[in-house]
């Protein structure tokens, strides 16, 4: 008897159980605390950006649901080694996908395996879970200390 949805796929369950890049980063050049007051998801995203505007290192710490944790884990793996501008474009694409404004099945995109979060559009109350680490990453780039989603 399987769940009839695309939300809790094996990749997401695996990243929830064994999150990658799950650590504080004292040498970070940018960081931002992201918090959803409605559900309590609470993460800090750390970035180390070099003189060429490349994200050399990216990590996160915190607690929350499986969707937010897996999304954080997958995001950190995906952004490592990318340019800041490119990361901002990927945020835009990811955001459009989870809101249902971009369909990775039919439209061109640069999200790679992040496209597996497309099923989240069927769960409106969970979209914020997937997008919280991305908002935190953008907050870090903007030098904000805190971002909230609700």
């Amino acid at each position, binding site marked *: 008897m399987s769940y*009839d949805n695309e939300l809790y796929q094996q990749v997401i369950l695996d990243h929830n159980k064994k999150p990658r890049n799950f650590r504080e980063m004292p040498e970070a050049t940018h960081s931002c605390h992201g918090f959803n007051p409605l559900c*309590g998801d609470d993460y800090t995203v750390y970035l180390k950006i070099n003189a060429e505007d490349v994200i050399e290192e990216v990590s996160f710490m915190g607690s929350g649901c499986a969707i937010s944790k897996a999304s954080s884990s997958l995001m950190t793996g995906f952004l490592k080694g990318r340019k800041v501008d490119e990361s901002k474009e990927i945020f835009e694409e990811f955001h459009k996908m989870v809101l249902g404004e971009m369909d990775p099945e039919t439209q061109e995109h640069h999200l790679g395996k992040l496209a597996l979060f497309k099923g989240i559009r069927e769960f409106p109350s969970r979209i914020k879970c997937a997008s919280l680490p991305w908002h935190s990453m953008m907050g870090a780039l903007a030098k904000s200390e805190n971002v909230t989603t609700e």
Partner: protein
Amino acid sequence: MPESDTLTTVKPPFDVDKIRADFPVLSQKVHGKPLVYLDNAATTQKPRRVIEKVRQFDSEEYGTVRRGSYKLSEHATQMFEDVRQKVAGLFNAADKKEIIFTSGTTQAINLVAYSFGKAFVKEGDEIIISNIEHHANTVPWQVLCEDKGAHLKVIPVNDRGELIMEEYKKLLSSKTRMVSVNHVSNALGTVNPIKEITRLAHEAGAKVLIDGAQSTPHLKIDVQDIDCDFYTFSGHKMYGPSGVGGLYGKYDVLKEMPPYVTGGDMIRQVTIEKTLYADPPARFEAGTPAISQVMGLGEAVDYIQEIGLDKIAEYEHALLEYGTRVLSEIDGLNIIGTAAHKASILSFHIDVIHPHDVVTLLDQDGIAVRGGHHCAQPTMQRFGVSATTRASASFYNKFEELDALAASVRRAIKLFS
């Protein structure tokens, strides 16, 4: 699970299937599965006769209340006041003038915090709440204390989620102006010893407000026996409409209190220089009230009284015991709130799954439960969690639905293990 099976044989004191047939919403399917509605602590569903009463009133009898001197208005006013009498009867208030209609418990508590606070709370005074209050019975008192330079004191709870009465006694003093606690905790289900709480507060010279949002549809309540000064309730948690509820207040206390919201209907005479206020309850009911919703509330009161609150409490207790049993058998699941006296609320924490994932997975099985902090963050902090999953049962729930809950929780745990 032989013991659980034994419990299913407890015969409900009424025909649950017949009661379920009264609630149109319960017969639907969600994600292809029969709806199992277990979020009754958040809001209850409405029986057909409540829905029908509002429809019929709006279609045939609607008119403004307490103003018009034509037939529709006079009739609506009479019906409106009849509901006030019914509500007074439900709580065994001495007089229907002691019932004030509000938008619900939140507004009722704000009314008392503002109005009683304005007249009777001064710098250095103390207000006592508990560690297991809803934000609606926390924030209004914080605001009052901030405005007046008064202090908020908090009754701690033990690991079962019961108020520590010895600590409460120590908090009481001649500085205490108000003790405001819930009858039943919405987050844990604890039933508080409100009669004893009230007696002790009165000995110290303080007034007492009991937040009854969670208790009203599940326990028989007698405000004269409790002797509390205020008792609050919400229509949408007692099988009635949302947007209506109320406040019981002892008349002697109410008549010393200034208005909360001002405007039409709450006056005796207005001149540009001065306004004379009406007596309670009108003093606290400025503006056109939720007339149609009050009609629905009256029908809900009739409905639960016809079933009988004693029978409701008896059956819901059996559901609580059964639900506690089937959930306790699940490895890795901890029930938070294990008071000796509890209402049918099961708040739990699962080691490997966050409550929001539990809720989404249970929803796939047609089961509606709440995940979150239940507007009681200080309660969550006390138990060291950010959130719980909460299943809350009503007299229209069945033992089989609690089996379905347990099976769905097991399935979720398996997926995450």
